[in-house]
């Protein structure tokens, strides 16, 4: 019995190029208040293009209908729970959208005089301070555009420090449970990557680590809680082992939603970390971005932070461009400011105690789901979980149904799937992160759906394998898409 959803009609819609017809327009421009210029003369005839071949021509009503119809083909947080593990798909408060559009902020040009940018700079200063307090760190750069960009920045900072100490070293250690961006970022920073196996409880194996940390290891990148949702109980020891050998501890803050207000990475030995404002701090994911990936560091790494740095001189804020140890710029201008505004609004709305409550609710929701689904799905790691829980499909796989199939069937019940087949250390993983913004009603109906699917698999596995049935698009042929790539529209 599917309680949450029923089918409804959705509109068909052609591509823009197919519904285009010559002469239609959706724009208005004012009359020119200066003389027109002949482009061929001003730019040189050889530099002026013919028409933009294939570009759409449609009316305003057609344009709004086009995008509205398309939008209804998406699932979204606004429709319901989005339990994607490690993605922290929480409600995106609309107040954030409103304040990000405040005119003096949204229309501030990055090169306008600093004297006319004090408001923007104060927003950045306040956010830097709040994030430093939340992380227990000494300094924050807001420049990186996303999590992976923050990782790259953080590893470059470590390299700069070690270089200054005489040897940048060659290797970064990364647990096999890590997100793929970790090794990719380390590689761009010029490091070799050595994978370390997780222990039986899903954590870092201390004795293995002790052996691996040699004089050529620059850092360990850990995600804490790790991708199983398990807190690294030995984290203080881990930091000690690294520090003893002159190596650094990098923390991927993708899972900070489990820690805010409860524990601070800076207090448990982390030297540098990034945050994903589009996860923990509620800025919308927008179908894939934009995000922001601020990096927080201990004092010893501060001299190396990207240029420019915000600094206060009495009542005025200014940017400091003359920093001789800086790793340089990682992005033009100062960061994804519009995303920073949203994150600060979120922090202000919650305040200190509110942020801690949010963390407790996030963990409560995840533990509740674990208890409810444990009788039906295999739980490969028994350690206490925090904000997310990872099951495996091993019971269902015996009947030929894999995690990807269960995920697709979940769509028929009106939910977005959980994260499928990640982390890779769990064969056939179902990674579930409810976040704090789901209430008991929505979570109970998710649990009902998961239990119902477990029963369906026992009675009719074939049916589950062919799901979804209620979507306007059935299973998509990804194989043909990859074998014969069609990456743009072309006229027939």
């Amino acid at each position, binding site marked *: 019995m599917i309680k949450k959803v029923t089918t409804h009609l959705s509109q068909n819609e052609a591509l823009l190029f197919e519904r285009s017809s010559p002469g239609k327009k959706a724009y208005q421009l004012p009359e020119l208040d200066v003389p027109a210029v002949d482009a061929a003369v001003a730019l040189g005839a050889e530099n002026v293009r013919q028409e933009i071949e294939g570009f759409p021509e449609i009316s305003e009503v057609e344009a709004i209908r086009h995008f509205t119809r398309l939008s209804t083909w998406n699932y979204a947080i606004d429709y319901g729970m989005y339990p994607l593990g490690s993605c922290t798909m929480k409600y995106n408060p609309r107040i954030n959208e409103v304040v990000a559009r405040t005119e003096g902020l949204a229309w501030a040009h990055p090169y306008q005089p600093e004297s006319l940018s004090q408001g923007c700079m104060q927003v950045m200063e306040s956010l830097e301070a709040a994030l430093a307090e939340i992380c227990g760190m000494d300094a924050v750069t807001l420049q990186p555009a996303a999590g992976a960009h923050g990782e790259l920045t953080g590893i470059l900072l470590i390299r700069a420090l070690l270089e200054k100490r005489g040897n940048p070293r060659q290797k970064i250690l990364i647990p096999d449970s890590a997100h793929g961006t970790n090794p990719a970022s380390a590689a761009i920073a010029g490091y070799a990557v050595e994978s370390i196996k997780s222990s039986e409880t899903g954590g870092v194996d201390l004795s293995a680590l002790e052996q691996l940390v040699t004089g050529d290891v620059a850092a360990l990148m850990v995600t804490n809680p790790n991708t199983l949702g398990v807190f690294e109980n030995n984290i203080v020891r881990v930091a000690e082992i690294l520090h003893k050998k002159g190596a650094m501890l990098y923390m991927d803050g993708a899972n900070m939603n489990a820690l805010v207000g409860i524990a601070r990475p800076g207090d448990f030995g982390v030297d540098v970390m990034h945050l994903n404002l589009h996860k923990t701090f509620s800025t919308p994911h927008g179908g894939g971005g934009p995000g922001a990936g601020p990096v927080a560091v201990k004092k010893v790494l501060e001299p190396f932070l990207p240029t420019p740095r915000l600094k206060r001189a009495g009542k005025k804020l200014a940017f400091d461009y003359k920093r001789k140890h800086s790793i340089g710029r990682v992005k033009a201008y100062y960061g994804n400011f519009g995303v920073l505004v949203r994150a600060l609004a979120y922090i202000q709305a919650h305040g200190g105690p509110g942020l801690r409550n949010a963390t407790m609710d996030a963990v409560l929701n995840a533990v509740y789901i674990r208890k409810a689904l444990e009788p039906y799905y295999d739980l490969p790691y028994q350690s206490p979980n925090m904000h997310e829980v990872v099951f495996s499909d091993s019971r269902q796989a015996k009947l030929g149904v894999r995690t990807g199939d269960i995920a697709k069937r979940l769509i028929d019940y009106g939910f977005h799937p959980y994260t499928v087949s990640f982390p890779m250390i769990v064969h056939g993983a179902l990674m579930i992160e409810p976040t704090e913004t789901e209430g008991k009603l929505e979570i109970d109906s998710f649990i009902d759906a998961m239990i119902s699917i477990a029963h369906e698999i026992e009675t009719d596995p074939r049916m589950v394998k062919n799901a979804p049935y209620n979507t306007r698009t059935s299973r998509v042929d*990804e*194989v043909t898409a*990859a*074998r014969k790539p069609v990456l743009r529209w072309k006229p027939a």
Partner: protein
Amino acid sequence: MYPDNFRYTKEHEWVLADGDAGTIGITDHAQQELGDIVYVDLPKVGTRIEAGKSLGSVESVKAVSDIYAPVNGEITEINESLADAPEKLNTDPHGAAWLVKIRLSNPEEIQHLMSAADYLSYVGAEK
């Protein structure tokens, strides 16, 4: 299933040698494990290959697998038809979907590889 005149590796490549002329491919077991193959990345003719080192890769939608050279040698020809029809690797991995032809540095090396019978019991045990 597995031709007797081929030799096999633990990484699921096969090699067929005639004197110093060899042909390399991936096994039926390998294509089954990978699922639908969508792309094959092969080296240029003239490239030296080293036993146990990657000579290229095979991709499915969500995985990339290295192809390891079973023996030492030099590439003399690549199977151009796979660029347009990688799906052949799923249907005929031991025949039309060979990957590269090589000149073996030392034809004796194939003696160290598995026979068809050994390979069959090897993949049996792996399952």
